[in-house]
């Protein structure tokens, strides 16, 4: 059973990805594929909004690491928002937070990235 889905929206040059459900199996690789696609199109500002993500396990972390790698390779800026406390602790332990910008809300990330544009 696949309990994962991904919605993608864009706001100006910012791409917002909302992984929904369980980020715990190869089905969640859609997240990495989507990142590749948008980065390949030259969009370098990515937001991953975890508000609808219920569960992340080691496989999910591995996929998020791939997203981070793709973003770094393309000199992108990657923001994580709405990360649950338990997931944030895992991200911090494993060093993911050194490579992404964390925000409480999606809006904050969008405002931050919009300023990046002006800068």
């Amino acid at each position, binding site marked *: 059973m696949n309990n994962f889905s991904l919605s993608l929206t864009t706001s100006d040059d910012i791409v917002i990805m909302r992984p929904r459900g369980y980020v*715990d*199996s*190869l089905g969640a690789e859609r997240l990495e594929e989507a990142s590749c696609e948008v980065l390949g199109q030259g969009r370098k500002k990515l937001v991953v909004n975890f508000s609808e993500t219920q569960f992340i*396990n*080691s*496989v*999910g*972390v*591995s*996929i998020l*690491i*791939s997203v*981070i*790698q793709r973003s770094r390779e393309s000199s992108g800026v990657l923001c994580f928002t709405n990360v649950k406390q338990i997931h944030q*602790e*895992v991200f911090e*332990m*494993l*060093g*993911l937070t*050194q*490579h992404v910008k964390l925000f409480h809300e999606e809006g904050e990330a969008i405002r931050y990235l919009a300023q990046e544009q002006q800068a």
Partner: protein
Amino acid sequence: MNARPDMKLLLFNLSALVDLGQAVTSAKEYADRMKTALYVITGMFSIPRAALFVYDAGRRELACVTSKGVPALADARLSHDASDLEGMPHNEPVTVRSIRDTGWFKRNAAILDRIDATVVVPLYAREEFIGMIVLGPRLSGARFLRTERDVLQVASHQIATAISNTRLFAQHAEQSAENGRLYENMRGIYHDTIRAFATAIDAKDQYTKHHSFRVGSYAAAIAHELQWSSNDVEAIYVAGLLHDIGKLSLDVDLINKEEPLTPQEWDKIRRHAEVSYDIVAKIRLPWREVPTYIRHHHERPDGKGYPDALPGRDLSDGAKILALADSYDAMTTDRPYRVRLSPSQAIEEIRRCGGTQFDARISSVLFGLIERDQAEIAPLLPVVRHTASETALPLEMDPPWRVDA
């Protein structure tokens, strides 16, 4: 929950080991299971680049089965000799720094550098070398803690065991298929040999050409009607083909004698059931009941048959079927001393002898088969396409047990 950071890490690692257990034992394809397993490891230790190689002893290579974060590594192969592993621990992480000067590393440096290898784990299951996990640097840049090394060792052992089990299963399946092919070949050889014997038996008696084949077919048809298993139907068919093999020891003139036989000549003729048994019992046929069916194919329910004069209760259904099929064919083919009976006349004769010479229950099965198509014998025989009047019974006919097989 206010667990200390190292406790949280341990909890995460333990839950990852559970993820790994589920991944390697899932019903998914091997490639997906291995990919998920590598993702668990790379997620557990935050490693962007890694690859899993499986050992191919024949080619002395490690073939990449899955990788992460390294483009175009799918067909990568590492050269590997058994001697390369000397001194390497089983399922324990080894730093690349410590093996950088080895021949193994130097031979494979191009691929290992693409992964930015920092740690390798030689995989072992049941003391057998299975493959290698190659890990790039961690996202955090941190070195492996003692507890993390232990967790990695457990995870590696799980992956090694999963690969080993998959291989063993594939070997077992291959072996099983090979055994099946050998058994089919052997069965083919058995049947060719048995048919050759039957042809030799039937050639001896000019009046009963193809008698053995018809008896085998009739017996198989009755057994099939009684819903015997295909193996048991095959057994009774073979018994039919060989039931008169003892006649090979008789004089041709005696078998084909048109005048009434003397008591001494009858004795000789009657001995053929026992001689048939003695011959067939010496052959290790895959159907254990065949010799007994053959020995008793002239026994009668009233105990007045030969060679053992057994009463009906001591006779197997197989023996009763064979006796009936033999008699039915004898009745419906020309003999030196009389012309053949029609099927309906034969039914009448068998019915008259019901309970004494023939088993009533088995007989009624034969009657049902005959009455299903009065005109021809052919319907009796599910697949043997010939009629009672046709003597040119093809030797390559399909064995009757294949009908519903």
